[in-house]
């Protein structure tokens, strides 16, 4: 194991390189572009044995990924923002055709107005597409999750595509020291895909047929069922990855939850700030914690309920708006999760950081304070607020 300087984008590209990917099909878009640039360098220098398809759009990028994945190849792509939105219809088809594609996403805002900076609007617009959705906090996690995502996606019990999300610019373009595994260790952890050709002329099958009201629902019902197998497979993958890396992942990571009265739940880079502030506040005797969600889809319902059991209130940080909905998308999921199980838990939904707006320590401290105030008896059960915006 060695430690090298990598940006979040480079960490994902480096991981994909070690995963012996057979086909990459991708299109440039800020802030993901470094991923495909780095990978193109690997191809040009003969460091990987990969068919790189330089497509003419993200729509074709994912279309070609689906085609390649059906041959049994290991497939990778990357995108962001408008690119993910352009892929939208194919996202559903990739998961429905059970293609274990892995996609790096440098999360970015959606137009209009055009903005190239980080928020979670892009992924949240695709949260129901049947993909495994993982959010990494930093470059190290991006690297580790990319490798684990291939194992998880290609697990015969799963066979679903995965996205590894990093905050645009904040993580995608920030260089950090990343501990990388030896190539051989990754190869041993992730052997080549085999026996997975769905378009074998020796065993012809019809892929992507028409299914009318008499069958369509059963297909979708089974797809919902497959999602339930992900958590068990994820635990298996994370356990094995821990063995080769010494780093232990799971559905989420907690900090300072022992005896906490309130906690922040968030995804991505904000977790670092939340942890940093929590540490300082705990030093002053405040009972605050952090739950950083790694696995957003499938949503770890039961485990979260157990994790939040002792809390009086929870601050759910959403880096996206669900226009017209009562809460941000993460908060809607959380409220659905705790309904009837943690009836006394109060919820503050903080919508922050859109279009790359910074979230400061002061903002986060304010959220903790407000979370603690909400824990008092007379405070309302639920509140939604926007943080760091001129109103």
């Amino acid at each position, binding site marked *: 194991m060695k430690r090298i300087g990598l940006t979040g984008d480079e960490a994902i590209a480096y991981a994909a390189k070690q995963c012996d990917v057979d086909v990459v099909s991708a299109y440039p878009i800020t802030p993901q572009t470094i991923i495909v640039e780095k990978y193109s360098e690997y191809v040009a220098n003969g460091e990987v044995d990969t*068919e790189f398809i330089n497509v*003419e759009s993200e729509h*074709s*990028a994912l279309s070609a990924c689906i085609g*390649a*994945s059906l*041959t049994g190849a290991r497939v990778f792509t990357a995108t962001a923002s408008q690119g993910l939105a352009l892929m939208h219809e194919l996202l559903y088809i990739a998961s429905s055709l059970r293609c274990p594609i892995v996609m790096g996403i440098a999360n970015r805002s959606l137009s209009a107005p055009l903005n190239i900076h980080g928020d979670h609007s892009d992924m949240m617009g695709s949260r129901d597409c049947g993909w495994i959705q993982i959010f990494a906090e930093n470059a190290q996690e991006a690297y580790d999750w990319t490798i684990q995502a291939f194992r998880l996606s290609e697990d015969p019990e799963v066979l679903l595509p995965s996205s590894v999300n990093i905050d645009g610019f904040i993580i995608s373009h920030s260089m950090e020291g990343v501990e990388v595994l030896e190539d051989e260790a990754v190869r041993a952890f992730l052997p080549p895909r085999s026996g997975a050709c769905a378009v074998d002329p020796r065993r012809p099958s019809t892929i992507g047929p028409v299914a009318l009201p008499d069958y369509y629902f059963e297909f979708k019902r089974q797809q919902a069922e497959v999602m339930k197998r992900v958590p068990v497979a994820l635990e298996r993958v994370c356990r094995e990855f821990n063995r080769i890396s010494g780093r232990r992942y799971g559905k989420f990571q907690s900090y300072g939850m022992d005896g906490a009265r309130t906690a922040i739940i968030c995804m991505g880079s904000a977790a670092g700030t939340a942890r940093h502030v929590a540490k300082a506040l705990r030093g002053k005797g405040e009972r605050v914690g952090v739950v950083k969600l790694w696995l957003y889809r499938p949503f770890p319902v039961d485990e979260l309920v157990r994790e939040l059991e002792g809390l009086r209130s929870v601050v759910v940080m959403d880096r996206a708006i669900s226009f017209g909905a009562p809460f941000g998308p993460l908060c809607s999921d959380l409220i659905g999760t705790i309904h009837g199980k943690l009836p006394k838990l109060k919820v503050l939904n903080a919508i922050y950081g859109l279009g790359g707006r910074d979230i400061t320590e002061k903002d986060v401290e304010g959220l903790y304070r407000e979370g603690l105030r909400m824990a008092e008896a007379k405070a309302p059960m639920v509140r939604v607020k926007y943080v760091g915006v001129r109103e």
Partner: protein
Amino acid sequence: MMSTLRELTTEELLAPGHRMCAGCPVPTFIRMTLKALRGPAVLVNATGCLEVSTSIYPYTAWRLPWVHVAFENAAAVASGIEAGFKALMRKGRWDQKVDVIAIGGDGGTFDIGLQALSGALERGHDFLYICYDNEAYMNTGIQRSGSTTFGAATTTSPPGAKIPGKREWKKDLIAIAVAHDIPYAATASVAFWKDCIAKVRKGIEVDGPAVIHAITPCPRGWRHEPSESIKVARLAVQTRFFPLYEVENGKYRITLPVPNPLPVEELLKTQGRFRHLFKPENRWMIEAIQRWVDKNYERLLKLSQL
């Protein structure tokens, strides 16, 4: 190449029992196409008539691997399949050459799928793209496409009191394909089986992308008798409306010259979609179509002499 029917394989990779309309020549065309295969192949089908009518779960009419992903991306999906097999062969995880054929209608090719097709042609994937052209969105109920002939009545270009049918001209798909400098492009007609099969085989055999543009009349949309589809397809060639030619590495060749063409009116009058053109006030449109046909054939003659 085969010169008699007897030399064709009797294997039918498109099984009977599919749900294409009575008189639709597309299944006939697909059966011809599949008889031109040289070995294992995968078919990628864009959303459209052929796709929805041959794959209604739990049944399928396909006896070879068949993939449908979406409407506008058959060429992109084919790119991925070609690249996947290529990578797996090189890495020793796949052992046989698989030909990749993408098929789309005119909507899926001329309009919504044109970008994906252009990208795949530019990248030079080794695959054959076939467009079966029935000159409108027939699957959704006869809406005009970029391929619909000038003047034709469709449900979105209805002949009204003010506008007498479609006002725009048909795109030249083969010219677009040829502009990508691909090794092979050709037109084909379901009425000329030998020409058709030979071209499909050539398209498969060339190293790199190939495009075939086939005319397949639609009894429902063109408003002709279901029994007359082949006759209409033949008339399209005999009137020079849809000339049969090929472009091999940039070299044009008319594969079925029509020295003494019938007037295009002979073709138009077989179809209800052109009925309104025969009103005295619209006769100019028939003349305009004739001029368009003449101009295109002249151009083709010149190109074939280069």
